């Protein structure tokens, strides 16, 4: 049986004796006897390493994945350079905790400072925090930033945000007593700017994504104008891997930029752990939730990194704190930072260009199939797009037979497809053939 307790039975008894006890039970006399568990925990028997390995392999076999993947919708398959997970597995990093003791935690603190700098450079903004749980909770926290900064409870959000993000925002907003107001999407698949103009009065700000859930690139400069005209703040929810080729939040005047850092070298891992990033203008820096690393000096004048602005946080402000966040996603943040440093300026541009190239070719090929149409043909996109097809579920079933994961079927029957640098043109042709066959056979049945 596996045990990570090094002390032998004999040593344990000696230690007990030293504190004047004769058995382990003596340690627990403060616990009322009638509350104690009078039986053994009903759990499976312990396992050796090799048995455990077989058990986990069994779960892996139960999953049917591994083939070509054309699905994004908030989680993306990109190439992870091998140095990223290898470096993150340095156990000095991953077996540490929050760097409370700066002198012996410079590695983590400096990595964090570098991560914050990377996020600032991706977004063009002035300050970033040490991460929150994921993109959705970053959106929820950004609502609280808007509320605290503008002291208003009304917040506008785009209908075209990821539905998970919207649901999480509603969950938080209910508790915070915030009034969320939905800005509908036009038939072009982007936010209805007239609706923003008409409803900004009395609102703290607007939260919208680009590219949005449906893959469409939003006219953020015009949105920013509409939001700022009424004194509101603009929160841009962005996919960070687009920022090598697309405008950055500061370029169009966003006050806060948020998003999920998963595309930056983090595995899909069935939904987590990912990393929520948050950046803001200098004016809003103190409204950022959670940890922030800062630069200072020691007595000899050496550059030192520390956790700073801590008096904003829960361990000091308690119920007055803007957020309760304590543990964040530090290791994931550092992986994202490592990814960006491996890629560099040219790699970030190239990976963006490849995604655009692949997605547009896939879209073109899909639309050559009769009955398949781009839903928003006039709107530019990055690596995701929606098509309308006669038989989305049948298409995915047919693809599944070849271990291919097709686009995500939307509630209205459309399909949200994604192509990244990980997909090849051969895959596109194969997929299009299967879809063609599926569409043909449907036609035959009718």
């Amino acid at each position, binding site marked *: 049986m596996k045990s990570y307790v090094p002390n032998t039975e004999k040593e344990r008894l000696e230690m007990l004796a030293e504190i004047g006890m004769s058995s382990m039970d003596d340690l627990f006399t403060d616990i009322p006897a009638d509350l104690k568990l009078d039986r053994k925990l009903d759990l499976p028997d312990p396992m050796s390493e090799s048995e455990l390995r077989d058990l986990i392999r069994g779960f892996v076999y139960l999953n049917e994945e591994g083939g070509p993947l054309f699905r994004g919708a908030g989680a993306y398959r990109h190439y992870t350079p091998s140095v990223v997970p290898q470096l993150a597995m340095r156990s000095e990093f991953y077996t540490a905790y929050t760097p409370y003791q700066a002198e012996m935690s410079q590695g983590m603190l400096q990595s964090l400072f570098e991560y914050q700098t990377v996020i600032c450079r991706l977004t063009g903004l002035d300050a970033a925090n040490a991460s929150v749980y994921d993109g959705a909770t970053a959106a929820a926290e950004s609502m609280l930033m808007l509320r605290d900064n503008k002291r208003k409870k009304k917040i506008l959000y785009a209908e075209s945000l990821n539905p998970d993000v919207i649901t999480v925002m509603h969950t938080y907003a209910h508790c915070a007593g915030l009034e969320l107001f939905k800005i509908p999407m036009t038939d072009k698949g982007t936010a209805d700017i007239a609706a923003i103009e008409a409803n900004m009065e009395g609102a703290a700000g607007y939260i919208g994504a680009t590219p949005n859930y449906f893959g469409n690139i939003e006219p953020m400069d015009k949105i920013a104008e509409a939001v700022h005209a009424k004194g509101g703040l603009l929160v841009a929810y962005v996919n960070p891997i687009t920022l090598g080729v697309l405008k950055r939040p500061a370029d169009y005047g966003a006050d806060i930029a948020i998003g999920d850092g998963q595309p930056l070298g983090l595995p899909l891992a069935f939904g987590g752990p990912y990393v929520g990033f948050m950046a803001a203008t200098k004016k809003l820096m*103190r409204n950022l939730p959670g940890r922030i690393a800062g630069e200072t000096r020691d007595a000899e004048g050496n550059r030192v990194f520390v956790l700073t*602005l*801590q*008096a*904003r946080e829960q361990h*000091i*402000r308690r119920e*007055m704190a803007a957020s309760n966040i304590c543990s964040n996603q530090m290791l994931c943040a550092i992986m994202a930072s490592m990814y960006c440093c491996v890629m560099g300026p040219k790699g970030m541009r190239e990976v963006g260009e490849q995604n655009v190239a692949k997605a547009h070719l896939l879209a073109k090929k899909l639309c050559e199939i009769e009955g398949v149409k781009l839903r928003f043909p006039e709107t530019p996109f990055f690596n995701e797009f929606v098509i309308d097809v006669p038989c989305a579920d049948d298409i995915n079933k047919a693809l599944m037979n070849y271990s291919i994961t097709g686009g995500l079927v939307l509630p209205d029957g459309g399909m949200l497809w994604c192509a990244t640098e990980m997909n090849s043109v051969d895959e596109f042709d194969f997929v299009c053939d299967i879809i063609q066959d599926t569409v043909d056979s449907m036609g035959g049945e009718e």
Partner: protein
Amino acid sequence: MVPNDRKYTRDHEWVMVEGSIAKMGITAHAAEALGDIVYVELPAVGDETTAGESYCVVESVKASSSVFSAVTGTVVEVNEELDGAPEMLNEDAFGNFIAAVEFTEINEAELMDAEEYEKFCEEEA
């Protein structure tokens, strides 16, 4: 030490009344207790204050402390200098106000004069 041109609260704030305007700040005793002040979260002009309720937060590295208003009214001026130089409160707490409030209500009976406040501090210690 404690200037007698103003009044004091039990939470170690001072208030100086001129006509309908009350200038407010924290006492040297409060500043010392906090240690090195690193940030003052100022109210905004136009904010309403309520006597006995917090209108400002003062932060040191490892603590944050609410500053309570001695009056009910509307903030008409804030000491913006504190935004870039919070250490001014450590250096001269009585010489640097936090906010000026046009007040509608002040509970004089709750306030102490300099002599009473000094005695209060001694008793508290």
